[in-house]
């Protein structure tokens, strides 16, 4: 089905782009949001991703699934956003302070210990460098196999594995520190 839509898009049919958008918008948006933790950035990335698909349609191989192409574009756009953000962060922090807006973590139930643990996991993932976070998102959120992540991100499989290992270690260390501070959570990891 992608093949037919891509061929139509390559022929200049905007309706085909609309159908592809309808089909893949959630995939692009949730991936962008999980990597950036910023709703506005995720929306911008969603838009830019499909603009790129429209612009570079002639270069897209219609015989292959489109999802890996979209994942790669989404992650690259998220990296670009993160680079720009490092420069703009002080200004954005001030604007955020004035507007009172918060980050874009899907809210877990803060009234339960499990909800608190989920929140902690989200914070650990958010603190990972973007290149590590992208691997974690593609593996745990999108359930992609290591080989596919390797192809999407143009990384050796060993690097994908090492980034996952790093993320697990960071989470383990954070939880261990929390366990020392909050003994009642110990049951989760003993």
């Amino acid at each position, binding site marked *: 089905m992608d093949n037919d839509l891509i061929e139509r898009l390559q022929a200049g049919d*905007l*309706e085909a*782009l*609309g*159908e592809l*958008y*309808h089909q893949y*918008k*959630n995939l692009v*948006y*949730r991936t962008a*949001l*999980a990597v950036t933790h910023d709703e506005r950035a*995720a*929306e911008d990335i*969603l*838009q830019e991703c*499909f*603009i790129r698909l*429209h612009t570079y349609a002639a270069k897209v191989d219609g015989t292959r699934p489109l999802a890996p192409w979209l994942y790669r574009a989404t992650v690259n756009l998220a990296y670009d956003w993160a680079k720009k953000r490092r420069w703009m962060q002080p200004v954005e922090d001030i604007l955020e302070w004035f507007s009172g807006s918060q980050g874009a*973590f*899907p*809210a*877990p139930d803060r009234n339960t210990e499990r909800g608190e*643990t*989920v929140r*902690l*996991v*989200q914070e*650990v*993932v958010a603190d990972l460098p973007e290149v590590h976070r992208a691997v*974690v*998102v593609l593996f*745990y*959120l999108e359930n992609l196999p290591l080989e596919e992540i390797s192809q999407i991100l143009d990384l050796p499989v060993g690097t994908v594995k090492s980034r996952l290992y790093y*993320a*697990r270690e960071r*989470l*383990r260390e954070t*939880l261990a520190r929390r366990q020392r501070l909050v003994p009642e959570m110990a049951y*989760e*990891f*003993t």
Partner: protein
Amino acid sequence: MNSHNFKDDIDALLWEGLRPYAEVVPPEAAAIRLWAQLQQPSRPRWQRLLGRLGLYQGHMPVLLDVSELFPYEARELAFTGLLQNQRRLTLLMA
């Protein structure tokens, strides 16, 4: 607990921590922004305006009667004539 089980627990936590993202969907206005960008690539201000008029049907945007909901933007869009000759956009002024 052996290390294998511990890894499984960490895997389960990471999966659970990211699971809420699986349910997020983009705002409907995002489709309008995309469509407006394709139609008017040099008019980012109108992208933003159209994004705030977040109504669409199906996979392509259709603006409905926005004049009551967004009177200022509706007037401004009508003033610029942006929506003229746009087959899929209908702006009904009060």
